[in-house]
């Protein structure tokens, strides 16, 4: 296997397919995670996010396809592959009758941290997750937010290359969500993170790359900056008090098509690569069109998400 590729691509999932009886929960999914990347996995409820993450974490064997973590095949060398992984399932896997420190010490041994380094690893994970004062508290007495942090601490304890977090902010209050997000961003500086959610602002706030799963298939996979800059100046909204005929507007250089929207505004489609905003403003002022709005509606992640996952575009689930 190509060594140079291994160094960069930490997680390589190829053609992942998972069937539960006749239902195909995930089909033919390819996903790659590079070093130092925070990847957000979006999808409506039941899209196959958790199934995908469970397969990546080795808790579930794919029906077809394979998962390679740092060059180790999950099916052939599971122990070595899992060595590089930290996983927080949808529900944090905690033993309520243990204290935070006892639990993390167990996890440290579970991940084979050498005996002499265990205490230091537990202490540093607790610091990272803001748990320093909670060490002797029973997990059952911790609030939901703190339990979630203990779950994250468990996932980063052994400083794995890849951290998989399944809905890390589910069920938290807004303050806790902000704290966990900040924590995830900090994690992204030294680990590669895969994070799933069905909450869009969450992904927007934390992730450098977005993948959307729908009906068990990957329907979108792009870096975040591309989404922000997507469709730049392709459509414009124009509001005029005294509009001229549509052919006059269409004659402005760079305007490809003109439509009237339901709310009485004009929607202009720009010619590829052209930005006619300046020319429009100039002509509106000169000819006294009564310009009161000239805006460029951005195509947000939400628009993309809605477009890709709305019912009419739903990919039918195939029976196996």
């Amino acid at each position, binding site marked *: 296997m190509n060594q140079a590729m291994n160094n960069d691509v930490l997680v390589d999932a190829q053609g992942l397919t998972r069937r539960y009886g006749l239902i195909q929960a995930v089909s033919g999914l390819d996903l790659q995670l590079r070093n130092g990347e925070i990847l957000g996995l979006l999808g409506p409820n039941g899209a196959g996010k958790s199934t995908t993450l469970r397969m990546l974490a080795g808790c579930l064997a794919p029906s077809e396809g394979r998962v390679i973590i740092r060059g180790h095949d999950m099916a052939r060398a599971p122990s070595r592959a899992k060595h590089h992984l930290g996983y927080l399932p949808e*529900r944090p*896997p905690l033993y309520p009758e243990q204290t935070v420190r*006892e639990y993390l010490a167990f996890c440290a041994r579970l991940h084979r941290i050498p005996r002499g380094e265990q205490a230091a690893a537990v202490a540093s994970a607790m610091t990272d997750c803001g748990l320093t004062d909670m060490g002797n508290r029973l997990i059952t007495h911790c609030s939901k937010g703190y339990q979630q942090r203990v779950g994250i601490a468990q996932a980063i304890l052994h400083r794995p290359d890849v951290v998989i977090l399944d809905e890390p902010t589910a069920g938290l209050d807004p303050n806790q969500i902000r704290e966990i997000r900040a924590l995830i961003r900090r994690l992204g500086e030294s680990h590669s993170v895969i994070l799933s959610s069905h909450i869009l602002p969450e992904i927007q706030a934390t992730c450098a790359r977005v993948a959307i799963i729908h009906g068990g298939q990957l329907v979108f996979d792009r870096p975040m900056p591309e989404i922000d800059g997507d469709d730049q100046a392709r459509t414009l909204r124009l509001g005029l008090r005294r509009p001229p005929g549509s052919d006059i507007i269409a004659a402005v250089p760079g305007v490809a098509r003109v439509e009237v929207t339901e709310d009485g505004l004009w929607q202009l489609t720009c010619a590829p690569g052209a930005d006619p905003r300046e020319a429009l403003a100039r002509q509106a002022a000169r000819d006294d069109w009564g310009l009161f709005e000239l805006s460029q509606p951005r195509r947000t992640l939400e628009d993309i998400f809605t477009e890709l996952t709305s019912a009419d575009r739903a990919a039918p689930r195939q029976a196996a």
Partner: protein
Amino acid sequence: MTSIWLIARQELARLFVSPLAWTMLAVVQLLLGLLFAMSLADLMLNPQRLGDYNGVTEVVGGGLFRFATIILLLVIPLLTMRLFAEERKAGTLDLLLASPVTLTGLVLGKFAGIQAFLTLMLALTALMPLSLSLGTQLDLGMLAAGLFGLWLMMAAFAAAGLFISSLTREPTVAAVATFGLLLGIWLLHAVSFFDWQPAILGMTLPLGDLARQLSLIGHYDNLLYGIFDTADVAYYLIFCGLFLALTVQRLDMERH
């Protein structure tokens, strides 16, 4: 090996922070103590009965151990029900499955943890007949064979319970099913007394013999009399091995 030790240690630690383990030790100890006291009292009132047995070790020790197996039959399903069913229900099984610990290590670790707890229970039980050595001569060989047999019986119960626990996510279901399975294998012994040998295709099926060989108690009797037969020990070892292997298989199937 380290992972077996690690899982066993965690299992024991979690047992002893829960009231279940302590209650169980207390109740078992109380019941066995009562029986022990009753059999001593019985012996004091009717000392002539000793003549029917091979000394006091067989009367008191044998009786106590036989009663202990019945209590264990009721108690062990409650101990083993948590092993996998509870972990699955609480979602902590994912923690173990996503860790570098192998399935075999996980199953053997759980088994070792529960067996360590049962060994403690056995040690406490052993103290009762051993206390008689203050006043009389005991047949220590017979006592040791009985205790070893009880230890094997515990291991067999625990292995079966571990397997059943890996089948479900409801601890109570696991407890009931384990109890049913153990009692079923137990009761096979009763079948061995049937004087009924059905003939199939002209061959006589040794039903009674077969039932005696498969039943859990049949193999314990020899050990209680101080007879150490490799076949009996092998029975328990095979029984444990079978159920432990089935558990590993079952957990592997669950991932696929």
